């Protein structure tokens, strides 16, 4: 297999290109994804290559983009709709919660809804409160949805391909702050990374970091810079989360720090913490700490104070290492 260095945008573009060329049932739709190539350029060049019937520039209506994609999936296609910013997904929430997530269940399994809803999420582009949100919790709490978020170009492509070739609806959250920050060698052809499996990015003995998506590089940088002897888990899939990977690490280190960008209250970190406490409290040497975004909207000018950073992560490290 040939490969080349790609950033996450290029890797996603390559995945979509492969999917379109290998399966006629694949259709892309969204705002400005065609002639403009997407506001983040993820769909660049695909309209020219596959035509307006398969790469559809839609009117400005998120619920319509999602609703149409659901109808297409029901009739046998494999749509991959895009929501321009995750912050704008909420008008489609009824379609997501009450249609997409429940098609299979409510039809007694007669109908299914295989689609991938892609959307960039999180901060890092000075977008303020309406172009920076991390809403993974809303989706993770919705039974019927699979929730995936990659943290690097290689995973982004492999996970997107798996999501698109699965049989259930997937919310695919792309950490926009990582769109162009790093390049990796990415194969030109289709390959898959399994849904539901975390990746252990580094192994260690003192403590465990559990993180995903946009915060993975922040955690890895902190771990490296401070020479921490830590397990680092990149969850990759939030639902269904990789319980085994988490519990293995919990049993080994007994000290857990969860890092995510979304607000703390009701964030996905709460679920991870609760599931660990439920089944592994005896292994714990320290309180499970969460380093997260605060319970406030993301500000524009003061954005740097929002997402977890090295200092805050190291504060947590100090606390868990001090515990007996």
């Amino acid at each position, binding site marked *: 297999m040939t490969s080349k260095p790609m950033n996450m945008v290029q890797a996603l573009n390559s995945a979509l290109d492969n999917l379109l060329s290998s399966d006629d049932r694949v259709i892309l739709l969204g705002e400005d994804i065609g002639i403009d190539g997407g506001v983040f350029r993820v769909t660049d060049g695909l309209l020219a290559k596959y035509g307006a019937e398969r790469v559809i520039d839609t009117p400005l209506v998120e619920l*319509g983009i999602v609703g149409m994609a659901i109808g297409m999936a029901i009739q046998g296609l494999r749509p991959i709709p895009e929501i321009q910013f995750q912050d704008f997904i909420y008008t489609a929430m009824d379609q997501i919660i009450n249609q997409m997530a429940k098609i299979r269940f*409510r039809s007694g399994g007669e109908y299914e809804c295989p689609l991938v809803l892609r959307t960039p999420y999180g901060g890092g582009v000075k977008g303020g409160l309406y172009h920076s949100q991390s809403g993974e919790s809303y989706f993770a709490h919705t039974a019927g949805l699979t929730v995936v978020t990659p943290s690097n170009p290689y995973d982004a492509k492999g996970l997107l391909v798996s999501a698109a070739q699965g049989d259930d609806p997937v919310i695919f959250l792309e950490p926009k702050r990582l769109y162009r920050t790093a390049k990796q060698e990415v194969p030109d052809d289709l390959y898959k990374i399994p849904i539901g499996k975390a990746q252990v990015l580094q192994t260690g003995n003192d403590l465990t970091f559990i993180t995903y998506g946009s915060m993975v590089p922040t955690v890895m940088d902190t771990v490296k810079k401070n020479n921490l002897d830590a397990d680092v888990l990149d969850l990759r899939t939030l639902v269904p989360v990789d319980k085994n990977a988490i519990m293995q690490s919990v049993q080994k280190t007994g000290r857990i720090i969860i890092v995510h960008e979304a607000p703390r209250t009701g964030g996905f970190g709460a679920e991870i913490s609760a599931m660990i406490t439920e089944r592994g409290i005896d292994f714990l040497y320290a309180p499970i700490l969460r380093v997260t975004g605060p319970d406030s909207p993301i500000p524009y000018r003061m954005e740097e104070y929002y997402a977890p950073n090295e200092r805050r992560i190291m504060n947590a490290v100090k606390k868990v290492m001090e515990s007996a």
Partner: protein
Amino acid sequence: MEQQKKEKTESEKPRYIRAYAAMVLSRTLDKKIVSAQRQGRVGFYTPTMGQEALQVGISMALEKEDYVYGYYRDVPMMLHRGVPIETIINQIMGNSADTAKGRQMPSHYTSKAMHFMSVQSPVASNLPLAAGAAYALRYLKKKSVVVTTFGDGATSTPDFHAGMNLAAVFKLPLVFVCENNGYAISLPVERQTPVEISLKAVAYGMPGVKADGMNFVEMYNAAKKAIHDARSGNGPTLIDALSYRMGPHSTSDDPSKYRTDEVKEGSDRDPLVIGEKLLISMEFADDKLLEKIRNEAIKTVDEKFDACEKIPPPDPMTAFQDVYKNMTWMLEEEVKDIL
């Protein structure tokens, strides 16, 4: 000329009789379920009384390969299209023979075999799906048309606006049928929106037609044209099917709180009475035949209802399947605690 017309009309006879029979069957079933609900044998139901003609009229104009993205009152259409009456009753019962495995509240039917999408509760959220379905069917080079139905209240929803505009922009093979029964629960259509529903089509550059939904032949004609246009690539139409919700909104509703019933069963505006008069004036039927159809309907409904009622409930495990293709570990764990 006269002769030809006569012959053509004569050839329509079985079709018209079948239409009437479906209306009668639906009405009979409707009343059966409502009374069973009062006896505590059924949990809930949304009667269709008053909307039979409009639905059967649409169904008459549909081909086998067409699809319906309908709503919770579409029993007459389903019956006319050939969905077995058992499918309806089993759904109402939520028993182990229900296509949706007892998961949905009564009146939320599914019949993939007969091309009916499963019904959801949130009003009008089937419309954007119908647009996607129509897009997909055209893309797949099928000749199918999609019909989507909804109430007058539904026209105020976001999903109506989305579905209509998308269908218009992409010129989809899709027909929108507003089953305008005058009320959205307690709100009369005049307070839902200050215009006639058919005019809403103007906002999307789509033809909007008013049809007498109480007359199955007029409805059939309106539907035929719209469906033909859709199939020929001329894009979508909105049909405002004027009718009346003769029953309560649902078995939980008491309409005397907000209206007096303007159309009574058996009155001149009852779509079944109108249908009978049509058949008689066309000389397609006489009183005897009509009587026979009515009696057969009663017999069928009573028999099938009793039979379906005896079918046991679903296995509790069914409550947790089909959330995903494969059950997640979380749910497996939870089910172990529950069952």
